């Protein structure tokens, strides 16, 4: 009797399993069909982020609509400070892995971890997609008055290890150890990325920024890896600089820099410093690369949460991210169209947001960009 009951149960469970399998199968086929239909349109994951992110994303979407750009966004709300509204991380990372491109706002990171977890959501996203390289192109924009003119340098940052490894512990009470991990593989990988970037974009010099005089083993390994890779690029000049000197040189004479490659934390600091030189967090675009996908996000990571709902944030950085996205995805025509419109608005200087010394709102600025699209 027991045997019979077990058999019936087994049969039933198999039946239900079969049904679910079939249902799943149909689902995937449908998905494939729909992706074939929309062949001409580029799918792009969209993460608005925290703070003013959603407002800036709306600006980008409006400009895309006005320019008739063939991009279809797949929006996901991802947030660490708002966990109840946030989409699950694996869903978001699967979407990025599928679409290969993503436009992302900034995710706020609280100073204190509520759950005791050390890894932030940002770091988890980077880890899950292996977005190892962050590229920030710091370039003076026309019409923006800043401390230095004609700055043009590229800051490349390793962002999966180093100080951001989330390995901290209190070994004895009152003594905290924070581990900084440097590996040869990842250092060589980022160095090669920097040199390949230099070759591809016709740049002449790569500067390795480090602190190997103090951290002789950790940063020493990073420096050594860069030197090894540099041997393979005889036509690109290679220089090294200690990070403290580098920050000083950056504010006094930024024109000496071309492509810069550095470990995680130094990259974060230098990114923000360089962004300050050319007009602040609202005007610098960046991108994170893995082998397969790219996430475009503003270069200096600030959520600007005090301006939420005030309609004062500057959408320039986000628009530049979108331009880079279009250029990357073989939609250069649209990318250049938007870049030119943006440059026209900045050059005129009549419609500027507060951070650039103007009086206009986000929506007015966006409208001005749309009006000067040609």
């Amino acid at each position: 009797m027991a045997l019979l009951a077990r058999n019936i149960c087994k049969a039933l469970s198999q039946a239900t399993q079969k049904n679910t399998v079939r249902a799943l199968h149909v689902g995937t086929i449908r998905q494939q069909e729909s992706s074939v239909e929309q062949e001409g349109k580029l799918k792009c994951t969209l993460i608005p982020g925290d703070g003013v992110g959603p407002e800036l994303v709306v600006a980008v979407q409006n400009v895309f609509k006005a320019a008739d750009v063939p991009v279809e966004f797949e929006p996901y709300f991802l947030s660490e400070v708002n966990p109840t509204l946030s989409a699950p991380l694996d869903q978001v990372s699967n979407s990025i892995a599928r679409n290969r491109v993503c436009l992302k706002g900034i995710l706020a990171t609280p100073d204190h971890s509520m759950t005791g977890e050390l890894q932030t959501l940002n770091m988890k996203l980077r880890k899950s997609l292996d977005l190892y390289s962050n590229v920030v192109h710091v370039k003076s924009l026309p019409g923006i008055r800043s401390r230095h003119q004609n700055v043009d340098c590229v800051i490349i940052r390793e962002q999966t290890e180093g100080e951001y490894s989330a390995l901290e512990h209190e070994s004895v009470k009152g003594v905290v150890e924070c581990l900084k991990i440097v590996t040869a593989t990842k250092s060589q990988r980022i160095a090669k990325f920097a040199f390949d970037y230099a070759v591809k974009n016709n740049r002449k010099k790569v500067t390795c920024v480090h602190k190997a005089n103090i951290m002789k083993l950790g940063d020493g390994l990073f420096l050594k890896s860069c030197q090894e890779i540099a041997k393979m690029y005889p036509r690109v000049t290679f220089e090294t600089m200690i990070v403290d000197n580098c920050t000083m040189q950056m504010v006094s004479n930024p024109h000496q820099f071309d492509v810069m490659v550095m470990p995680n934390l130094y990259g974060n600091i230098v990114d923000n410093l360089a962004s300050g030189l050319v007009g602040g967090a609202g005007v610098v675009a960046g991108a994170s690369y893995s082998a397969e996908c790219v996430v475009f996000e503003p270069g200096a990571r600030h959520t600007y949460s005090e301006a939420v709902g005030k309609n004062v944030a500057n959408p320039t950085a986000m628009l530049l991210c979108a331009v880079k996205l279009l250029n990357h995805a073989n939609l250069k025509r649209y990318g250049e169209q938007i870049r030119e419109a943006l440059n026209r608005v900045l050059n005129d200087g009549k419609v500027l947001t507060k951070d650039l010394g103007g009086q206009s709102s986000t929506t007015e600025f966006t409208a001005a960009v749309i009006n000067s699209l040609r």
Partner: protein
Amino acid sequence: MAARSVLRYLKLRPVVFQSHRCASLSGFDIQHKTPTIKKVMPIPKAHYGGRHTVTMLPGAGIGPELMGYVKEVFKYAGVPVDFEDVEIDPNADDNVDLDYAITSIRRNGVALKGNIETRSTEAGVLSRNVALRNELDLYVNVLHCVSYPGVNSRQKNIDIVIVRQNTEGEYSMLEHESVYGVIESMKVITNFNSERVARYAFEYAKRNGRKKVTTVHKANIMKLSDGLFLEISRRVAKDYPDIIHNDMIIDNCCMQLVSNPHQFDVVLTTNLYGAIVSNVVCGLLGGAGLLAGKNYGDHYTIFEPGTRNTGTSIAGKNIANPIAMLNAAVDMLRHLGHKHHAIVIQNAINKTINQGVHTRDLGGTATSRDVVDNILKHIKIATA
């Protein structure tokens, strides 16, 4: 300097010891450090955000114009591949450009190449094509010869894969005059390289569902050298019981190829015989302008047109056949994993040929431009 020009005038160069002026590698090194397998630092390939960077060596003759067409087609089809152009000056008397090209391939992993000319007659400057293959240890050359139904050729429905040893044999460049009037040229066959290439041929046959491998040799005359090659291919064949293995002497093979090519499936040969056999088969299918070859090593890959001709006489006349180079580019896309783009471009090429848009070498009247425009048109239809 003066001394050198005097020497040049007296034409004593072959006898005078040539000091190698190349910075990192002498010509001798490039030729003879191989055929031992090279330890290389495992560096990541240039593949970022879904885009690949590939070294492009346009070479001489029609190379630059064909590369222009490849770039145009890639741009039009939206292929996520960027090219790093490396020019090699054919007149240079040193190997600086060549070294740079080799370094560039080392860091990108993949190259698309036209035929490179070597005009310099200095003893230290060797054929750049051979130097590239030897230095990067590209030990196997694969030429997949398939008939196009739309091409009016001598034989129809041919489907032969030629696997050729690419780094040793007659191309070892070891020649000397032992006594006045007597030249010795060495042909080097090694156990190690023969086994690698034989293993490649059988593995290729197994993975691509091929039935037969034919080893082409001349072991009845060169009993030791070609004998070794044959013996090793027989030994490797024992590991693949599902695949038929037979052997054929090169002279007979050439005759069989022109009279009954359908008996061949995969052809495994040494270096020089491979050059001959591939040119014979290309001739059967419609000339030098159609087929694309692949050079594989353990770490690097070079794609190039199947028959290695520069076509200097037709350069700049808008009559060169762009199909071979485009086929090489499609092979490259497959290798890089951009399957979708490879299929789109491949279909466009096939349709263009089979509709009869042919350049002069295939008996048509179209210019190179017409052929490329036709391909672009088909790509547009496929992606719209």
